């Protein structure tokens, strides 16, 4: 009797504690959202209470002043292009690396990829910037897409290769006997089987590219090519006193990421727990 009551009390505290932690973890987003909905006057007198009037002008003005749709377009173009490039070329590379695991050459390439994941962007920053200048790729969305993709190759190959190793070879051997070439075998048989890991790599890369600041702040300096994080960075610097406006822009740029996360959560979690994620 006593014991079961003690157990119930323990369970009660356990439940309270875990919900409390969950709420604390997302509470900073509450700040962003209510700041975005308050006028400057209201922010001056009350910061954390719910807004008395919903001040939507922050959003309409923020969109205009920060050139939001241009940044959204740039972010969308760069993220989707780089994600597509990475998915196509890295899945092919991973396939051949996984299948040629007795070849010295392919094994060394794989080893170099693994080692390269530790390389900090700063160690290639200066030479890369100079090269991009020379190639006319500074202030160009394509320049950013190529540099960012290059930087993500190692990580993407690593998660996909692990998965390909678990696909049995028998299927391809059957196709080989039928006389299908490597490309046809790959696109018709192997690629469809890779769907779960492809989803994972797409989501993780998309999040990473969408949120990138370090590489984009180096390459995309002109206002017309700024992505969302860059726009936030510069807009915030200029609107330190217009908090509502700045946070409205933040909230808007959070929406795509959160939508992606909530709808494809399963793939993010499985990608991380496959133990290969070493961004």
């Amino acid at each position, binding site marked *: 009797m006593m014991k079961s009551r003690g157990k119930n009390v323990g369970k009660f505290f356990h439940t309270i*504690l*875990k919900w409390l*932690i*969950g*709420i604390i*973890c997302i509470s*900073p*987003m509450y*700040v*962003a959202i209510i*700041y975005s909905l308050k006028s400057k006057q209201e922010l001056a007198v009350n910061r*954390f209470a719910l807004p008395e009037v919903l001040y939507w002008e922050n959003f309409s003005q923020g969109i205009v002043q920060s050139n939001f749709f241009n940044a959204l377009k740039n972010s969308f173009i760069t993220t989707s292009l780089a994600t597509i490039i990475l998915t196509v*070329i*890295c899945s*092919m*590379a991973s396939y*051949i*690396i996984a299948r*040629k695991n007795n070849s010295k050459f*392919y094994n060394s*390439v794989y080893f170099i990829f693994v080692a*390269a994941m*530790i*390389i*900090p962007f*700063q*160690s*290639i*920053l*200066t*030479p*890369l910037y100079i090269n991009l200048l020379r190639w006319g790729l500074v202030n160009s969305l394509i320049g950013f897409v*190529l540099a960012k*993709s*290059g*930087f993500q*190759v*190692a990580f993407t190959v690593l998660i996909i290769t692990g998965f390909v190793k678990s696909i049995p070879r028998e299927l391809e051997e059957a196709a080989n006997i039928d006389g299908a070439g*490597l490309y046809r075998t790959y696109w018709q048989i192997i690629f469809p089987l890779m769907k779960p890991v492809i989803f994972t790599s797409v989501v993780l890369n998309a999040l990473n590219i969408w*949120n990138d*600041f*370090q590489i984009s702040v180096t390459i995309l300096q002109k206002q017309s090519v700024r992505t969302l*994080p860059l726009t*936030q*960075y510069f807009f*915030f610097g200029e609107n330190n006193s217009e908090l509502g406006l700045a946070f409205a822009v*933040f909230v808007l*740029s*959070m929406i795509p*990421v*959160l939508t*992606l*996360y*909530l709808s494809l959560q399963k793939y993010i*979690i499985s990608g*991380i*727990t496959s*133990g290969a*994620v*070493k961004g």
Partner: protein
Amino acid sequence: MKKKSIVEFSFLFPALALFILFVLYPFIEGIPISFTNWDGLSDNVKYVGFRNYVRMFSDRHFVNATSNTLIFMVIEVVFSNLLGLFFALLIAKPSRSNNIIRTMIFTPFCLSLLLSAYVWKYIYSDFFYGVLGIPSPLGDKKWVMAGLANIAVWRDAGYCMVVYIAAIQGISKEYYEVGDIEGCNIIQRFRYITLPMIGPAITANVTLLLSWGMKVFDYPMAATSGGPGRSSETVAMLIYGNLFTYFKAGYGQAIAIVFTISIFLLSFIVSYNLRKREVEL
């Protein structure tokens, strides 16, 4: 036969080419730059031997940036992992409510580092100071790195948690049954069953967060711009500044090389030691 190997190589080629062009080639190009006095702009380049490498160790800005980065990294690694493990133990059992809580705790990880930094800047100044009366750590030279690291912990503890949950769920029930027969209490269960079994997850999380912590750039750029003074300038920021602000590209590149080697060595030593302990535990 030969045709076959060309076809095979064509699968690897695009990825390899992109990697070489935008990562490996610039990395190698950086080595000679680090031995020059180049300013990053002019054609006037002179080789100065190891002078850049010698100079940084008596450069107080480099020493300052290194110690800031290390403080940040240690707090980030220790607290993200401790909290992540604690959260994982609380909600490892699969259930509807635990799934919702997991989603909540992991959400910050999806936001950009920049956004995290800005939101926290105002939580510190408006909530901690405005409501609780605790001064913002970001305005205090002594506390600024801890304040920044706290943002990273908020964002990355959820990541660690997800990895630990998977590791805990992978432990066979039989171990716990044996533990119950032996009369283990909850602490003994954790110490002698859970902890040894999640060793590989600890190694993975610590090594990964170590490299994230060392590379810290976005948080101080957004929340403090390296201030107050230069008390939150990190190594990554110093290298960036040497190219774009101080016009000492050669010197910055030498720092970048030392920085890369240090991260390699540190990751290697830490993961080697953790792996060795995995067996002993």
